[in-house]
C-alpha cells in the first residue's frame, strides 16, 4: 500500500484554475521531485497537501486513511485539520522561522505545545521537556547546527536558517516531509549545504516531496519525478525516464530552455 495516494486534486482561485486534477502515489521512503515552470501549480499542490489550501476536488489518502475527500464535507473543523496536518511537514521557500526564539526553541516549540495534550503531561513535565530538548538537539546535530542552538534566526545565514526550518519540521516526525523550493531564496553558494541535508534525509528513509528548480539535484535524489504544466501532470516517471527519455513535447521544451 502506498504511504501517500493523491487523486484528482483540483483547485481554483476565483476564475483561475490552478490545479486541474493532479494525482500521484508515493511509497514509503521514496523521494518525489516536482518540477515545472513557475505558475504550473507546484506550490499550490504542496499547500493543498498541508491543508493551507482546501482543494475544490479530489482525495488525499495517507497510509490508507482518507484525510481529505471533497465529497465528504463534514470533516472540516479546525481541530480535525490540525491533526491531519501532522502527517505532513512543510519547509517553506522563505524559511518562516520564528524570529523571537533561539534556534533550539524554534525546533522545540511545536513539539512542546503538542506534548501538553498528552494525558501524562502534568506528572512527567520535566521528563517530557527533557526528552523533547534532547531530540531537538539530536536533530540539529543531523542538520549540522549543533553549535548554533543559542543563536537567533537573524544571526544565521540563509542556508543555516533553512536548515533550522528543516530541523523544525523534522522534530514533529512527519510521515511525509514537503519542501517548497527550499533553495530558491538562497545564494548559489548556500544552496549546496541545504541540498546536502535533504540528500542525507533520503538515506535515513524519510518520505519526501521536493518542489525544486535544481534539476541536477532532482535527478540525483528523486526516485520519482513529476513534471507539471498548466495545473496538470504533464509527465511522470523515474528520474531517468523523465530526464533522459521525456515523452512529452512540453517536457523536452522545458529542459531545453533550462539547459
Amino acid at each position, binding site marked *: 500500500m502506498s504511504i501517500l495516494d493523491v487523486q484528482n486534486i483540483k483547485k481554483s482561485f476565483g476564475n483561475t484554475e490552478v490545479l486541474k486534477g493532479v494525482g500521484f502515489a508515493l511509497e514509503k521512503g521514496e523521494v518525489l521531485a516536482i518540477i515545472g515552470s513557475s505558475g504550473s501549480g507546484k506550490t499550490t499542490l504542496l499547500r493543498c497537501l*498541508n*491543508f*493551507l489550501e482546501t482543494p475544490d476536488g479530489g482525495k488525499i489518502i495517507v497510509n490508507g486513511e482518507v484525510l481529505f475527500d471533497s465529497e465528504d464535507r463534514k470533516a472540516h473543523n*479546525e*481541530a480535525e485539520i*490540525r*491533526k491531519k*496536518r*501532522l502527517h*505532513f*511537514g*512543510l519547509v*517553506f521557500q*522563505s524559511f*518562516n*522561522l*520564528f*524570529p*523571537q526564539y533561539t534556534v533550539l526553541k524554534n525546533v522545540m*516549540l*511545536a513539539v512542546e*505545545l*503538542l506534548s501538553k495534550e498528552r494525558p501524562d503531561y502534568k506528572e512527567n513535565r520535566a521528563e517530557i521537556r527533557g526528552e523533547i530538548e534532547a531530540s531537538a538537539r539530536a536533530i540539529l546535530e543531523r542538520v549540522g547546527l549543533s553549535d548554533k542552538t543559542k543563536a*537567533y*534566526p*537573524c544571526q544565521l545565514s540563509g542556508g543555516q536558517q533553512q536548515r533550522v526550518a528543516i530541523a*523544525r*519540521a523534522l522534530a*514533529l516526525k512527519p510521515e511525509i516531509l514537503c519542501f517548497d523550493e527550499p533553495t530558491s531564496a538562497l545564494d548559489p553558494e548556500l544552496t549546496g549545504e541545504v541540498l546536502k541535508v535533504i540528500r542525507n534525509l533520503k538515506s535515513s528513509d524519510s518520505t519526501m516531496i521536493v518542489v525544486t528548480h535544481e534539476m541536477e539535484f532532482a535527478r540525483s535524489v528523486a526516485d520519482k519525478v513529476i513534471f507539471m504544466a498548466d495545473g496538470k501532470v504533464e509527465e511522470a516517471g523515474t528520474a531517468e525516464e523523465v530526464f533522459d527519455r521525456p515523452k512529452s513535447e512540453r517536457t523536452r521544451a522545458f529542459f531545453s530552455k533550462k539547459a
Partner: protein
Amino acid sequence: MSFQTVTMMLLEGFAENGLIFIMTLLFALPLGLILTFGSMSSFLPLKWLTKTFVWIIRGTPLMLQLFVVMYVPGLLFDISMPGSLFGIRISPRMFSALIAFVINYAAYFSEIYRGGIESIPRGQYEAGQVLGMTKRQIFFKVVLMQVVKRIIPPMGNEIITLVKDTSLARVIAVQEILWIAEEFTAMGLVWPLFYTGVYFLAFNGILTLLFGYIEKKLSYYRG
C-alpha cells in the same frame, strides 16, 4: 507666595493628571485590544460597527468628547456620575474625564494594535499552522511577541501624548495642574504657568527612558 508652596500646590494638581494617566492606561490598553478584535472580525456587522465607532472617536476632538461625557448623561438621561472608583474618592467630573479619556485612547490604541498585527507576515501564521498549532497558540506563542516589539515606538508616542492631553480635563473643571497654575495668574503670579512645563518634561523624560529601555530589551532579535 514662596517657590516651595507653589511647587507643592502644582504637584497636587499634577496628581490629578497622573490619576487620569494611570487610569486611562489601565482601562484603554485592554479595551483597545477588544476594539482591535472587533475591527478585524470576519463578522461584518461587528467589524463595521467597530470601525464606525473608532472613526467617530478619532474624528472628533477629545475636548468635545469630554463635554459630551460631562453633560449628555445628566441632561438627557438624568444619570449622574459616581463619586468613587475602586473605593478611591474622585469627583464626578473626574469620573467623566476618565470615561472620555479611556474611550478616546482605546480607539487610538486599537488602531496601533491592528497595524502591528497586520504587519506580521502571513508566513508566520502558516509556519504555525503546518506545525500543528492552534489559532490561539499561533497568536500567543508566535505573533504576540513580534507585535509587541513592532508597536513599542508608536505606543510610546501615543502615551507621551496622553501625558500632555490630561490637561484637557480642565475644560470640565477638573483641577489639574494647568487649572491650578491659572489660579495663580488670577492672583497676579504668572511664572507658575510656565513652571508647569517642568512637570510634564520630567514625567515624559522618565517615560522616554522607560520606552528606550523596553526597546533595547527587545532588540535581541530582528524581524
